[in-house]
């Protein structure tokens, strides 16, 4: 239940802004200027309201004007790409998955301005993984630099229907603590559940090629669980021939395709779009799901019974018994070189990432995204104490070990993501009957072809 009433938050934010409590030295009171902002529309109404409050507070405190557009997730990415191609962009662009899709390549091509000065203002407060996820390689200057301002973070927890687990005669507390065993735990439930429900599946795997991120995220976690995290190392080099990596890929591909072929995954999952897995979960078509953020549960926040029934679990250990490292995705803002009002843009972003502003913004958004600052998570009871969903989620994201997405090491991997190499590999095996070995070789070869276009000088 949302203990934080909306009206309270609204009153609070306006009051605080008016009191100028956060009128930090960074805000320019000089002349009123405007910055245009492209921001992603949230998945729940409250996220948008939180952003609108943030903007209102900034405008009041600084006297500048923010001209913003809230655009849905998919179209926003397309507009950002179109804008960057044509060279006519808003001043600030923000997207939930820009770290995987847009920022790496555009930093490579020297199209984004350096935002180190913004990040510096809170550098000591940011989570190290979030910082890693903000630095990208520029092929013109041949250096890494901050071109991304992390605003919020997300990880992939598990979402499970407790009632369905119990209906099948199991208890969630008995679930094993290692990766493959955890997934296997659900398999016997399918037969029991099918007695009363025709179309139910236990594994909410997302072997999809429909963007932007779910297919890749799913596979990456299996990869990490099987010891293949070294596929791209922080210096930007790819280790596609490393036997450990190859073995991890084979194991991951085997598990996913076997589960699909054995009928534990809805056949339509091959073509699931970003929201389809959530839809399947809400329709109780799947028992559990591995998906980014707690949007799955938050969408039901006003239906108490359902909200309590859906359990959020952080990740079990990996297959070697070690604590599993989750992939931390950073959602953030960036400024293109073609922006016109850079000063105001930077000012706004500095305001946004001030810890209290950030915390308030994310809390109003029902906690769907985590602040990229561990101290906020630890100090504000909202994150770890008030709601079991958030506890699991925040622990996984800010407390337990995490790794960033690979594009921050090598921008070519952003194109690997975009080309849905892993989703295609799964489809090759289940749909076209390729062997796992052949699909692995094909995928690794494709990755190597793509990465060859992005030679990163080792730094």
């Amino acid at each position, binding site marked *: 239940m949302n203990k934080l009433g909306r009206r309270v938050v609204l009153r609070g934010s306006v009051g605080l802004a008016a009191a100028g409590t956060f009128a930090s030295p960074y805000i320019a009171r000089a002349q009123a200027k405007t910055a245009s902002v*492209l921001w992603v*529309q949230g*998945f*729940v*109404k409250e996220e948008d309201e939180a952003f609108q409050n943030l903007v209102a507070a900034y405008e009041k405190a600084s006297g500048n004007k923010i001209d913003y*557009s*809230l*655009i*849905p*997730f*998919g*179209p926003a990415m*397309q*507009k950002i790409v*179109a*804008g960057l*191609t*044509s060279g*006519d962009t808003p001043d600030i662009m923000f997207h939930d998955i820009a770290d995987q899709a847009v920022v790496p390549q555009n930093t490579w091509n020297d199209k984004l301005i350096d935002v180190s000065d913004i990040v510096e203002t809170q550098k000591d407060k940011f989570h190290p993984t979030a910082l890693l996820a903000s630095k990208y390689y520029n092929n013109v200057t041949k250096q890494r630099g901050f071109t991304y301002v992390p605003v919020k973070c997300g990880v992939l927890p598990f979402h499970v229907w407790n009632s369905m687990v119990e209906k099948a005669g199991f208890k969630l507390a008995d679930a094993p603590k290692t990766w493959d065993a955890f997934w296997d735990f659900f398999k016997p439930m399918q037969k029991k559940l099918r007695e009363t429900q*025709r*179309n139910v599946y236990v594994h909410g795997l997302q072997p999809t090629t429909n963007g932007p991120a779910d297919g890749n995220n799913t596979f990456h976690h299996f990869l990490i669980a099987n010891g293949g995290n070294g596929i791209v190392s922080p210096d930007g080099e790819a280790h596609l021939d490393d036997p450990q990596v190859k073995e991890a890929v084979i194991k991951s591909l085997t598990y996913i395709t076997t589960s699909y072929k054995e009928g534990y995954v809805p056949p339509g999952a091959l073509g699931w*779009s*970003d*929201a389809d897995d*959530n*839809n399947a979960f*809400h*329709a109780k*078509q799947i028992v559990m799901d591995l998906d980014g953020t707690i*949007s*799955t549960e938050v*969408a039901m926040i006003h239906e108490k019974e359902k909200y309590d029934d859906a359990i959020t679990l952080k990740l079990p250990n990996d297959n070697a018994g070690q604590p599993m490292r989750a992939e931390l995705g950073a959602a953030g803002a960036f400024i293109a070189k073609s922006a016109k009002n850079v000063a105001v843009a930077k000012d706004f972003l500095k305001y946004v990432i001030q810890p209290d502003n950030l915390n308030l913004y994310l809390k109003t958004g029902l906690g769907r995204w985590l602040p990229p600052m561990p101290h906020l998570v630890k100090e504000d009871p909202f994150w770890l104490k008030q709601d079991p969903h958030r506890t699991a989620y925040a622990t996984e994201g800010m407390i337990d070990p995490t790794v960033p997405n690979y594009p921050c090491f090598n921008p070519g991997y952003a194109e690997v993501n975009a080309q849905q190499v892993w989703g295609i590999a799964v489809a090759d095996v289940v749909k076209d009957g390729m062997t796992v070995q052949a699909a692995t070789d094909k995928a690794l070869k494709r990755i190597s072809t793509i990465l060859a276009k992005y030679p990163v000088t080792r730094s």
Partner: protein
Amino acid sequence: MTVAVDDAGPAVAVAAAPTSAQRARSARRRLRWWKEAGALGVAVLVLIWTLVPVYNIFMVALESKGDVFTDTIWPSQPSAESFWIVITQGYWYLEHFWHQFGNSVYIGVGTVFFTLAIGSLASFAIGRMRIRYGWVLSNAALLTYVIPASFLAIPFYRIMQIYGLTNNLWSVIAAEVTFATPYAIFIFQQYGTSIPIELDEAARIDGASPFQVYWKIYLPLMAPALVAVGTYALLLAWNEYLYQFLLLSSKQSMSVPVALAQFLNSDEAPWNYMMATAIVYAIPPVAIYYVFRRRMSAGLTMGGVKG
């Protein structure tokens, strides 16, 4: 089709054995029966084929949110609640529905007006005034179709930025008019061959200016073609998605198809609302088509056969 005529009274029929003429007649009657039955069969197939997806739209609109994922082929508890939500803008994604509907109407009307105006003026100049290089213009118009609309989307976006028209309904109108006008010119030219040129000449002798000939003679006689092309242009604009999606980004400027596409990203799958919205959106073009259908078929092919 021949009409079978029944023979004289029962006495004759009972008394005589069936003659070959009578057998031939009943054979023809049987054949006709089969033909009618066949026609009816075709009609039923056409009806089912056409209406099943439409039925699905209505079914989803009338169901409640969760029912979409069940096994049913009827809505288990039909309710018009979704329509009410749409009309009263009672859902987050639908907050600006009527404004966005107005945008769609604006785009539609703008497209129709400019397609008809520019197309008829151009085809008048080419076909009636017979300007010397008119054929260059009509061929160039056709070249528009060498690269289909969907292919030009990316450059178009950039061009609109250069013209300063992003997020502006006029950019969409410009795009739609660009793709509808060549077809309009083509139809107008074809249709225009059925209007005798003597009428124009008579008017010119009487001292009419070219514009008066256009306005008072050409346009009224072209009415069926104008209606046909106008309807076509309206449906083109109403049907179109890609350009509207690329060129319109804010909630205030979005048209209904773009707003509908938002639903596809939702975590909640309120697809009953989405389909109800779609039905409301579909009413104007369908209504307009039905009002103008007779003029449409007349206007579309005059002259196409004679070639």
